[in-house]
């Protein structure tokens, strides 16, 4: 299966030469095998992803949660406006409102001119929680993780290959940080032994304390999570909009001085074949 990253920026899109290398689009990734495609999150990166899905009759969009940087691009995903397409949107269940109702709060006036119920494609919504389900050749596990509001991470499996996608996650929330016992680590089951783990690493160690509870991780906590879960390679993602390419590289270099976990910076346009 081929994994491609279409957006790895956190919070809000960025443009300009300072963030050109790692990219300014917000969260989106795709996983493709044969003629099956999964799109993970609908941040602004999904707009370009839509163009790459033109040959797919069915497209499954898996939303981790409904914060704006994860759904902002949905209205610009061209297959939604193609009546020949069958689009399935999967997202976390809430204890109060339906997924349809919550997505419609964005895809409706005055924020967006077209109502979700009026998009021309064949649209079906599915609510997930701590679930395991199959889409085509993929087996997918979703679990609620620590982030404000209903939020899940996804473990995408095909045969023996695993791609884990947890772009927004604060497993270290607590007075003493992460409890270093797998049973007590949010998201552990999703990431255990993953071939590729994409994980939130928005902040430096110094930035994290004043943003505790916002739902994101420091690069050090992301590295610790990668170590506890024995992920084979981790891509640090959800880059803070104020972090330039040079700053991200400094963060990574500094992290590597104290850790031998296999890591890199998630980069828009990055592709990898897991086979």
């Amino acid at each position: 299966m081929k994994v491609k990253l279409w957006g790895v920026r956190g919070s809000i899109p960025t443009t300009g030469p300072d963030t050109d290398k790692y990219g300014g689009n917000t969260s989106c990734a795709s996983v493709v095998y044969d003629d099956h495609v999964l799109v993970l999150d609908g941040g602004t990166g999904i707009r370009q992803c839509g163009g790459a899905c033109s040959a797919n009759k069915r497209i499954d969009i898996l939303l981790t949660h409904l914060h704006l940087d994860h759904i902002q691009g949905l209205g610009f995903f061209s297959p939604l406006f193609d009546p020949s397409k069958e689009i399935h949107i999967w997202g976390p269940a809430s204890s109060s409102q339906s997924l349809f109702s919550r997505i419609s709060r964005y895809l409706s006036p005055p924020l967006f001119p077209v109502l979700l119920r009026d998009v021309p494609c064949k649209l079906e919504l599915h609510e997930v929680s701590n679930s395991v389900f199959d889409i085509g050749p993929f087996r997918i596990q979703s679990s609620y993780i620590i982030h404000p509001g209903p939020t899940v991470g996804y473990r995408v499996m095909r045969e023996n290959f695993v791609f884990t996608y947890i772009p927004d996650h604060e497993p270290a929330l607590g007075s003493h940080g992460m409890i270093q016992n797998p049973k007590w680590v949010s998201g552990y089951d999703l990431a255990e032994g993953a071939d590729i783990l994409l994980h939130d690493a928005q902040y430096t160690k110094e930035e994290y304390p004043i943003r505790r509870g916002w739902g994101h991780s420091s690069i050090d906590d992301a590295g610790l999570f990668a170590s506890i879960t024995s992920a084979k390679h981790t891509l640090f993602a959800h880059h803070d909009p104020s972090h330039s390419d040079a700053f991200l590289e400094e963060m990574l270099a500094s992290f590597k001085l104290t850790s031998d976990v296999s890591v890199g910076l998630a980069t828009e346009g990055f592709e990898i074949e897991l086979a």
Partner: protein
Amino acid sequence: MTAYEIEIILNRQLADCLSIPVFITDTVGNLIFYNEPAEQVLGKRFEDTGEMPVEEWSTVFKPLDNDGNPMPPEELPLVKTLSDQYPYHKSFQIVSLKGKKQPISVTSYPIISRSGNFIGAVAIFWKQKLK
């Protein structure tokens, strides 16, 4: 290894910040975490014991009613919460580790996850002043 659901993890993280004794159990009463103030009540350290089966930790306490008579387990708040998944509160006495009677109040509540499932329970011990 399967991790606990985040509602359990967050309850532990909260308990870890509190200065009152907090016990967290699974759905059948096995003790899966107790915080530092609870260690003083239990006379054991979580670091040493880890999780404890219900048969082991429930015998540590000797609950007495206000007349000093032994209380049946089914009257204890946590046992009631585990039984019907509702919160309870009750004041009674326990015999402390030093053999002294200690009046306490116990509040228990069920942990119902976002998915609506009963996944565990919490008991908070409020110490009362000795008369």
